[in-house]
């Protein structure tokens, strides 16, 4: 029962994202046989070192979606303060209300059923442009971003080029 609610909702979101895709975002299930696993491509925001890049990520939805949020994991090399070295994204919209390990997130920023895949992806896109210094998931990247911005940007650009096979 819960599963059918979740798949219906995911299907609706998929249709919406196909008919009216946000700028720089392509997302959908890897195969419709399992609508709980999606792949998203996000373009790096302009005016940032991520500009020009395309970043693939995998979204995994729980069976009780949209009550619980999906998890998101970049499947490329990405050097960013809020992305764990294994690719997992740490952003408040992916945290269910109630589990706030860091005590800084407002309830309104966190996951709730009125959020959507589209909002997650847009939030992640703006996270790429503006890292959140308060919750470093990648300590080395956070430190470099804060103290050696030039080196950070160079490294991000290298990853962008490598991701495109250049």
């Amino acid at each position, binding site marked *: 029962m819960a599963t059918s609610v979740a798949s219906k909702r995911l299907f609706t979101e998929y249709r919406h994202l196909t008919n009216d895709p946000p700028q720089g975002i392509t997302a959908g299930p890897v195969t419709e046989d399992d609508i709980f696993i999606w792949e998203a491509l996000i373009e790096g925001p302009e005016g940032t070192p991520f500009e020009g*890049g395309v970043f693939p990520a995998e979204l995994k939805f729980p069976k009780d979606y949209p009550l619980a949020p999906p998890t998101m994991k970049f499947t490329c090399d990405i050097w960013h303060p809020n992305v764990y070295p294994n690719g997992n994204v740490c952003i408040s919209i992916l945290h269910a209300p109630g589990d706030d390990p860091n005590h800084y997130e407002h309830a309104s920023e966190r996951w709730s059923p009125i959020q959507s895949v589209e909002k997650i992806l847009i939030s992640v896109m703006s996270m790429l442009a503006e890292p959140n210094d308060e919750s470093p998931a990648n*300590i080395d990247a956070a430190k470099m971003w*804060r103290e050696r911005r030039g080196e950070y940007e160079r490294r991000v650009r290298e990853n962008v080029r490598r991701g*495109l*096979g250049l």
Partner: protein
Amino acid sequence: MSDQGSINIPQIFVILLVGFLLYRWFFTSSDPAGIRQSRQNGARLNPAQVEQLLQMFPQLDRRQLMWDLQRNGGSVAATTERVLGGRGLEVPPPSFQPQLPPLSSTSTGARPGAAAVKPKPSHPDLITRYNLSSKVGSSASIEPSPKPAWSQNKNERQQLLQRRREEMILAARRKMEERDRAGAGGTA
């Protein structure tokens, strides 16, 4: 028996009151004592401890960490507890001016470690992953990207999505190559 064993309401009040007074006594008296104590051994602030804390919490301010360390008598555990407890650190008074190490020394100190972690491209690039190498060179044959459309047919939908992904990657790659060419032309 049960009358003697149970606690009546006035007794609860007394216990609460005593508890509250004890709590207040400890709380208010420990603060000035802490300051007095820390002023005495203010000189022996261990830079290694500060570095250790900064590595754990790079988001925190060095001066605030030093202030907290000094106040609790140089206990890394107490400061860690305080930060993890979400209580945050106090803003030190302006008169607190510890010796801050020059910035360059810390960043060069951190560099070897950071560089050692660096080279491990664990993921294949997008061109390899999507088998696009055959389509990369043929930039002329690329039609304008298809209009986003929802198909009623499941397989067709799948193909359209796949096509949109490929278009996006190829477009990004083309753009990057053009930029490279423009850059090379500009410098030559």
